């Protein structure tokens, strides 16, 4: 039920796997109806895939218990519900961890729901047999050219499964790959009774979700206004939205905390990871981000209104991943004079030694930090500059793990036995490890082929 003001209060308590659970305390204390925890990115799915390969009971974001330990006392009091896609590619295991956390805190009676059905890994053949093409969404490459075996196949579900779980009385909803913004749309649909063809309201919910899904990034994180002037930047608060029945919303932050909510901080987030802003393709609606109107109120509050939407597309986005070899990297630093020249010479000597050692490297990446490692071709005069210091970073890709680990060792002897003077900065780690690379293959899949397998289950903590 919406509160007396007729609004639903949502908070974006997590923006990625690795975010700080401590940030949710201020949100919970402020009073929120739903704590939404967005834990997944393309890179995260890849990390979770590696976790699951090593251990079948993994594959979810393992900071979930830390979040729940802070949130469950508020959930048990009936003040807040939690919605998260922390299930990653193994929501049942995440639910197990959530139940364990509740028991450890001595809480019984909580209803913990899982939404399954995004994971299509074991259904690829079936999908193809039923006519799904699964071609690469960006390059157009046909699925016949998919490199090797898929390691991951997660469809981006919408808000429906979560709404279903809330209708069944869930206190905590754990999903797999539900689209980030849909975590926030779901409680709006549930509380306000929005219809699934009420495109403008659904789009408004997606805009709110998009503004909240990256935690501090709407409150002054990763900000290019007067970022240095934001108060207490070491404790940036996370965002809150009060969403009305008409889809209008006020974005704010916990009172008294640092950070800033303004049209400027919010517009930075509005276009983050967006392609065509007139057609933001969410699973449940196509949202027109250019229709949103922003109005600065007082006290770090911004009203967002007038969002328009169009009917959803017939497909879900789906992300597949494949093994793409092994990588390693090494860094060394040089100082003035001739730091850049020394770095270039060392790169060449290293490459030569790796070749002489007989290691097969399929791809090299050579960067000069302090010159143009990040700016590349956009740095004017990089070719003949005289930096006070320069760090050489070399990364490589090999077919096998062992070789990727061995390549870096060819750099170490150069400390004494290469002409460039003053080589340093290799660090105490010594390096030598290899990291698996994963290629990702975004594609589309017809919704009915996925929807018929979506399952919502609710477990009560005994």
């Amino acid at each position, binding site marked *: 039920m919406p509160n007396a003001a007729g609004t639903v209060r949502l908070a974006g308590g997590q923006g990625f796997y690795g975010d700080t659970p401590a940030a949710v305390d201020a949100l919970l204390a402020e009073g929120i109806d739903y704590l939404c925890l967005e834990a997944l990115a*393309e*890179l995260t799915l890849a990390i979770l895939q590696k976790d699951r390969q090593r251990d079948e009971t993994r594959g979810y974001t393992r900071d979930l218990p830390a979040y729940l330990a802070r949130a469950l006392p508020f959930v048990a009091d009936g003040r807040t519900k939690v919605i998260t896609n922390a299930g990653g590619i193994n929501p049942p295991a995440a639910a197990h961890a959530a139940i364990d956390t509740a028991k450890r805190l001595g809480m019984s009676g909580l209803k913990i729901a899982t939404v399954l059905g995004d994971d299509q890994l074991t259904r690829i053949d079936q999908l193809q047999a039923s006519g799904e093409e699964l071609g690469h969404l960006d390059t157009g490459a046909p699925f016949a050219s998919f490199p090797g075996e898929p390691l991951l196949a997660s469809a981006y579900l919408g808000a429906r499964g979560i709404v279903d779980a809330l209708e069944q009385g869930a206190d905590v909803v754990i999903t797999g790959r539900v689209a980030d913004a849909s975590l926030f749309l779901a409680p709006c649909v549930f509380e306000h009774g929005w219809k699934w063809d009420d495109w403008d309201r659904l789009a408004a919910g997606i805009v709110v979700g998009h503004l909240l899904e990256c935690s501090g990034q709407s409150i002054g994180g990763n900000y290019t206004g007067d970022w240095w002037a934001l108060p207490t930047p070491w404790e940036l608060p996370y965002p809150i939205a009060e969403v009305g029945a008409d889809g209008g919303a006020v974005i704010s932050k916990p009172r008294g905390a640092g950070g800033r909510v303004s049209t400027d901080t919010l517009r930075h987030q509005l276009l983050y990871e*967006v392609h065509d802003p*007139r057609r933001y393709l969410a699973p449940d609606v196509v949202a027109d981000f250019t229709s949103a109107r922003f109005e600065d109120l007082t006290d770090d509050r911004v009203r967002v209104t007038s969002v328009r939407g169009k009917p959803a597309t017939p497909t879900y986005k789906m992300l597949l991943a494949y093994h793409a070899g092994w990588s390693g990297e090494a860094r060394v630093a040089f100082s003035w004079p001739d730091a850049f020249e020394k770095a270039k010479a060392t790169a060449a000597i290293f490459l030569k030694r790796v070749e002489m050692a007989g290691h097969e490297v399929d791809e090299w*990446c050579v960067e000069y930090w302090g010159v143009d490692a*990040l700016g*590349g071709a*956009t740095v004017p005069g990089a070719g003949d500059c005289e930096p006070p210091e320069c760090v050489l970073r070399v990364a490589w890709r090999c077919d096998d793990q062992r070789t990727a680990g061995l390549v870096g060792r060819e750099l170490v002897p150069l400390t004494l036995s290469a002409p460039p003077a003053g080589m340093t900065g290799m660090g105490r780690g010594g390096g030598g490890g290899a990291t698996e*690379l994963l290629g*990702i293959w975004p594609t589309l899949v017809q919704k009915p082929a996925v929807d018929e397998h979506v399952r919502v289950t609710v477990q009560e903590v005994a």
Partner: protein
Amino acid sequence: MARVSLRELCGYRAGDKGDIANVALFADDDDTYALLCREVTAERVKAHFGPMVQGAVDRYEARNVLALNFVLHDALGGGGPRSLRSDNLGKTLGGALVRLEIDVPDDVARRRRPRPDVGWAEAIVRGALQRPN
């Protein structure tokens, strides 16, 4: 007319999806936005990035927030989990874009976005460095 880098005229944010990066530019007022729309074409952005962006560049307008959004295809060395680059997610591509210089009227050319004042940060770090255990 004078040449000014976009750094003086707008804010920016970059993001990634697969091997596609996007960079949004945010103008502070309508006049600057009109200027950006005229000068910062997809073609110029493509040329500016050179070999950093292997594919096409698309431009979208979001007039409601005075923004231009550039979508850079084939721009991240294969995408985050596959790329060998230290900036595998393209986080710095916004900064790289605002290096671009455009021709602007003289009154605009005098405009300067304020530079960071991080005296508070220097004080904190100095304090920590002065107190070894």
